[in-house]
């Protein structure tokens, strides 16, 4: 069915009343028409100009730098793809890639599961609901630096609160910082603590947009709370979950502040680089070793990786949705 409406093109204005005869389009009406066409572009221009200056230009300039040997304060020297060859033959790069992946899994999976559970609980009519919701978002409002500093103390070997608690149940002091997995777990805990509330709020918003009728119908059919959660809440939340997964994946691939500050400001990420993420690796190249060309190469590889991950995420999600539609 086609709908034919007599209306001006989007953004176009009808001739102003009394603005000359319609038979003879004067300069004034042409001006109006031109304004109507160009106005939308002018309105979006500020964003795109800023994006050009602070988004696109740095992106392209970084690519340019990545083809050079560049030390701050000295001249750039063209090296072609040497930086990338160096990167792809460097075991520290693969280590960082792997650590980014493990810390990403260790932090994202529990974080989203916890958030889902919390959101489900907060979706019930609780006393002091607003308080709980605000409390949940508080960690998100805390600075990474402050949170990490406190956690670094909590995870201290000799006088940390967590080892003290473990000591109460008879577990020997753990050297969180120096251990391989322990350091990764400690960093993941910081990330989980900061981001769970944020994701829970997003889930909560998603849950509240699910129609109450569905729950009532499910109750009438004798579905338990768990069954309601599985068969009503989860399917209804699918787009929301996809969103949080994409955002968390991007976040996880860029983890930087937590391992940097947890490591006392050093970019090594521990004695055996056990918590050196890609972000930290890039920082180390650029600001510890002054190798800006190499740092730029890492940045570009990270960029491509993230784009790839997001693409994969959406592909997977679309496939599942497609299957769901068929069934």
């Amino acid at each position, binding site marked *: 069915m086609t709908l034919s409406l007599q209306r001006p093109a989007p953004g176009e204005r009808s001739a102003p009343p009394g603005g000359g005869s319609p038979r003879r389009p004067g300069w004034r009406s042409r001006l109006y028409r031109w304004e109507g066409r160009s106005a939308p572009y002018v309105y979006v221009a500020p964003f795109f100009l800023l994006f050009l200056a602070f988004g696109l230009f740095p992106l392209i300039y970084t690519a340019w730098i990545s083809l050079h040997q560049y030390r*701050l304060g000295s001249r750039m020297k063209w090296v072609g793809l040497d930086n990338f060859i160096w990167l792809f033959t*460097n075991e520290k790069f693969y280590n960082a890639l792997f650590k980014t992946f493990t810390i990403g899994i260790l932090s994202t999976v529990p974080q989203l599961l916890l958030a889902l559970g919390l959101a489900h609980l907060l979706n019930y009519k609780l006393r002091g609901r607003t308080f709980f919701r605000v409390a949940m978002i508080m960690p998100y409002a805390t600075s990474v630096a402050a949170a990490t500093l406190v956690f670094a*103390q909590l995870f201290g070997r000799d006088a940390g609160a967590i080892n003290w608690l473990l000591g109460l149940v008879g577990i020997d002091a753990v050297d969180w910082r120096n251990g391989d997995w322990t350091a990764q777990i400690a960093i993941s805990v910081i990330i989980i603590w900061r981001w769970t509330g944020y994701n829970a709020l997003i889930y909560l918003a998603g849950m509240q947009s699910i129609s109450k009728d569905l729950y009532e119908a499910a109750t009438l059919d004798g579905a338990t709370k768990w069954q309601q959660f599985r068969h009503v809440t989860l399917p209804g939340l699918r787009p929301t979950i996809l969103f949080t997964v994409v955002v968390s994946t991007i976040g996880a691939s860029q983890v930087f502040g937590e391992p940097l500050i947890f490591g*006392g*400001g050093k970019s090594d990420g521990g*004695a055996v680089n056990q918590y050196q993420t890609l972000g930290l690796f890039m920082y180390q190249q650029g600001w*510890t070793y*002054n190798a800006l060309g190499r740092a730029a190469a890492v940045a570009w590889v990270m960029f491509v990786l993230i784009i790839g991950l997001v693409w994969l995420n959406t592909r997977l999600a679309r496939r599942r949705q497609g299957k769901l539609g068929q069934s």
Partner: protein
Amino acid sequence: MQTPRSNPVALAALALSSALVLTACGGGGEAEPAASGGPVELKVSLFGTFGYDEVGLFKEYEAANPGVKIAYESTQGEDKYWPALQTRLSSGSGVADVQGIEVARIADVVQNQQDLWTDLRETPAADSIANYIPWKEPAATTEDGAVLGLGTDIGPMGICYRSDLLGAAGLPTDPQQLAARMSSWDDYVALGNEFKAKAPAGTAWMDSAGGFYNAMVSTEEKIYYDEGGNLVFETNPAVKNAFDTAAAAGQAGLTAKLEQFVDPGWDAGFSSGSFATIACPSWMIGYIKGKAGDAGSGKWNVTSLPGGAGGNWGGAYLGIPAVSQNKEEAAKLIAWLTAPEQQAKVFNEVGNFPSTTEAIDAVAGTTDPYFNNAPIGEIFSKSSQAAPVQILGPNDGVVKNAMAQALLSVEANGVSPADAWTAAGTQVNNQVGA
């Protein structure tokens, strides 16, 4: 890069904001060229604790020189301070009139940045250049003879130890008697084994293998570079010996496995007694007082390095960036700040050891009540006199950091010393090229 003056706790905010600082180096904030005799504002940007503000020297200078105002700022961690300064220097804006330069950076400055700094021979600071101990100013002099910095302090070393813990383990607590038991680094390790047998629970002989290693190489003349400026750390027996000795101490459980300046437990260890001894350069005197607090007074003591060896760890310079609009006044200020009288004052209050011969003579009799009246003036003077003239190179910091990291992996992660040594070498060569 690990640097002696970084404070991990205060690094925090800086760490994250550094990205912002690094990019936010636009124009503005530039001092107006001063009309001669008119009021001048001198910007002084330093790192860690130089002691000038703490001792009140800036105020004193302002009072003595009407018309001069000093705007002082300090970054806690040198490893944050230096990259930020590099960005500003290369853009030519936002630099102060006086900037601090750590000794580990001076070779880089002299070899690669001579056009970014002022040659002090052409300023009122020229007269001060001759006042120093023999090696201090040559290290800040380029091939063409330009002097790019005036020395502030040097880092002669001793062994700081907890009298109470040593006493509890039946070891001598008197500095003289303790020094008599240590005629070499091997003796120091042997004492550690003796200590370990009778030590109170939760107390290790020393703080970290990396710190121990650094103390040993700091007594050497040739460390990571040879006279020709080539990287020789892999073939220098002194480096390998120090590495092996430190690694063995780590494996033997003599270390508390606390990474210096990084692990929050290291700071806490000065008061809690996680470790009984630490090789300490003079500037660490002030650091220990700060971390151990009033309660630590009388617990700590200082003696000389094993065998009365001399060494140097750390120290700094003051330089004037080439873009400064107030070179004359800035040069007068740094000449005054680094003059013997002021250096002696800083040592007596903060512990940074003077680098001018006159000031070293002046502090020879200083004792410190906090450290059981240890004759710190005498100990550090002797150490500085016995210290060799170290050969410095632009990537000293990179190598040192790789070594400390490798040793931490030995003591804390169970990596074998041979593997750790190889890993450190690979890391350095991968980054700076052999």
